[in-house]
């Protein structure tokens, strides 16, 4: 079929017009073939919103901004086209917000719970939500002050801590350590002093063993029980030793940390009561050791070999 010039022109223009209208509505997100729902909301301001900005419900795009107008009260009335079959309850809130730092602004509708629904053209409540960036931008100065205050205070604290550690506390710590080492020295002395008694105990023990030899046959079960007790005692001694050892290493660690001014201990070090406690503890320890010296039997009840007899 041969088309006349008029027909060709007509086809071209008509197609272009149709494509333009469809394309325009498509780009503006207006449904191409049916009338859509329209609602409006009023916000304090409308930064970042322009006609064509998107409208979301529960993260689903449902429409776009149609028109933006300033109201006489210098607020901003935004009309938006909503294209969804889901009705919007009365009492829903339109929140003008940003979905991310780099994304543009959009409007998010938070659905209300009413069983009545918004009609065409009705207005819902609008809230302008400031974004992180805006808050930072607007309150930057304020925040900056806060931050520098905080840093200043932190600095002060650290300086105080340092001072405390440098002078008094370091002295107290040294004293504590001295006390601890003298305590240990005394423990060693005690052990040395008791050497003879222990020797005699072992001697009488060996004497007993020879006597025991004779007793073995008739008093075997007793001897066996005795042996068990001895073994138990030795094991317990071993345990005590290990505990002492780990306690000493723990203590070492703690002391190291204190030396470095680390952790809560650093704070505790500040506390004079701690020193007093430690001091009194040392005194009591001294007393205790003195007591052991004077009356070992009372403290070495577990080593009651004598009690067996």
């Amino acid at each position, binding site marked *: 079929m041969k088309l006349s*010039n*008029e027909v*060709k*022109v007509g*086809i*071209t*223009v008509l197609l*272009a*017009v149709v*494509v*333009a209208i469809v*394309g*325009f509505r498509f*780009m*503006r*997100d207006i449904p191409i073939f049916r009338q859509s729902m329209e609602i409006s909301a009023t916000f304090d301001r409308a930064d970042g919103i*322009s*006609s*064509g*900005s*998107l409208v979301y419900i529960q993260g689903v795009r449902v429409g*776009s901004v149609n028109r933006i107008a300033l109201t006489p009260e210098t607020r901003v009335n935004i009309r938006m086209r909503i294209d969804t079959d889901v009705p919007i309850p009365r009492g829903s809130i339109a929140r003008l917000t940003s979905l*991310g730092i*780099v*994304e*543009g602004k959009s409007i998010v509708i938070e659905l209300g719970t009413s069983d009545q629904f918004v009609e065409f053209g009705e207005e819902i409540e609008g809230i302008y939500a400031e974004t992180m960036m805006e808050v930072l931008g607007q309150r930057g100065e304020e925040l900056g002050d806060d931050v520098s205050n905080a840093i200043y205070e932190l600095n002060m604290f650290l300086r105080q801590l340092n001072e405390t550690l440098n002078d008094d506390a370091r002295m107290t710590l040294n004293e504590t350590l001295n006390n601890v080492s003298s305590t240990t020295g005394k423990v060693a002395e005690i052990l040395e002093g008791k050497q003879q008694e222990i020797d005699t105990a072992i001697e009488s023990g060996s004497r007993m063993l020879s006597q025991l030899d004779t007793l073995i046959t008739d008093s075997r079960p007793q001897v066996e029980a005795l042996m068990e007790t001895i073994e138990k005692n030795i094991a317990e001694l071993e345990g005590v030793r290990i505990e002492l050892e780990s306690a000493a290493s723990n203590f070492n660690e703690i002391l190291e940390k204190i030396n470095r001014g680390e952790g809560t201990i650093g704070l505790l070090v500040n506390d004079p009561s701690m020193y007093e406690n430690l001091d009194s503890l040392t005194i009591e320890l001294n007393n205790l050791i003195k007591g052991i010296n004077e009356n070992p039997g009372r403290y070495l009840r577990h080593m009651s070999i004598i009690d067996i007899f």
Partner: protein
Amino acid sequence: MYALKELGKYTTLLYQALRSSTEFGTYRKNLFHELVKVGYDSVPIIILVGIFTGSVMTLQSAYQLEFAFIPLSTIGAIVSESILIELAAVISGLVLAGKVGARVATELGTMRVSEQIDALESMGFNSVSFLVVPRVLAGILMFPVLYIVASVFGIGGGLAAGYFSGSVPPADFLKGARMFFYPWNVVFGFLKSFVFGFIITTVACYKGYYAKGGAEGVGRATTEATVMGCIYILLADFILAALLL
């Protein structure tokens, strides 16, 4: 001096065209002939130009923004906005300066040097109304139509390129394209194509209508029409952007 004389002749021709644009009966038949030549016949090349512009834009934007910390939808926004506001009008304008401008200048130039324009005049025709008016009208009527074609196929081409290359999913592309879609940009692009249509056809008509010197003169007229058409398009693009944005 020479430039002023040219400008004067050009303006006079435009004035004659404007004055004789009321003689619709004289150019009605020619108008439809020209509308087909300028519009209908240019659709294939414009589709081709549109598709390639859009897809190249997409691929290159995706390549350039590969390592940047931005959402993929930005590419859609870049491509569709560039096409609507600038590329659809300017690139098709440049292509049509070659296609339409050269044809018009050659036609009128040949008619001038073979005395066909004199023949028309001597028969009592208004040769400006008969030859210039329908061509200029066809230009300003059909260029916006071709702008639509270029835009649609440009954005479509960009979308398709993003999809087939796997660099930009269509959903992201459309999201960006829609988010940054401002109707004013389309109006602006439309206006541009209107102005470009006017420039290309009037410059070509002017060069052709006043051609002289046989076949060589026609060749010169054609070259000048194409080159000057392109230059004036770029100039007008700049002026419009400076004035209206």
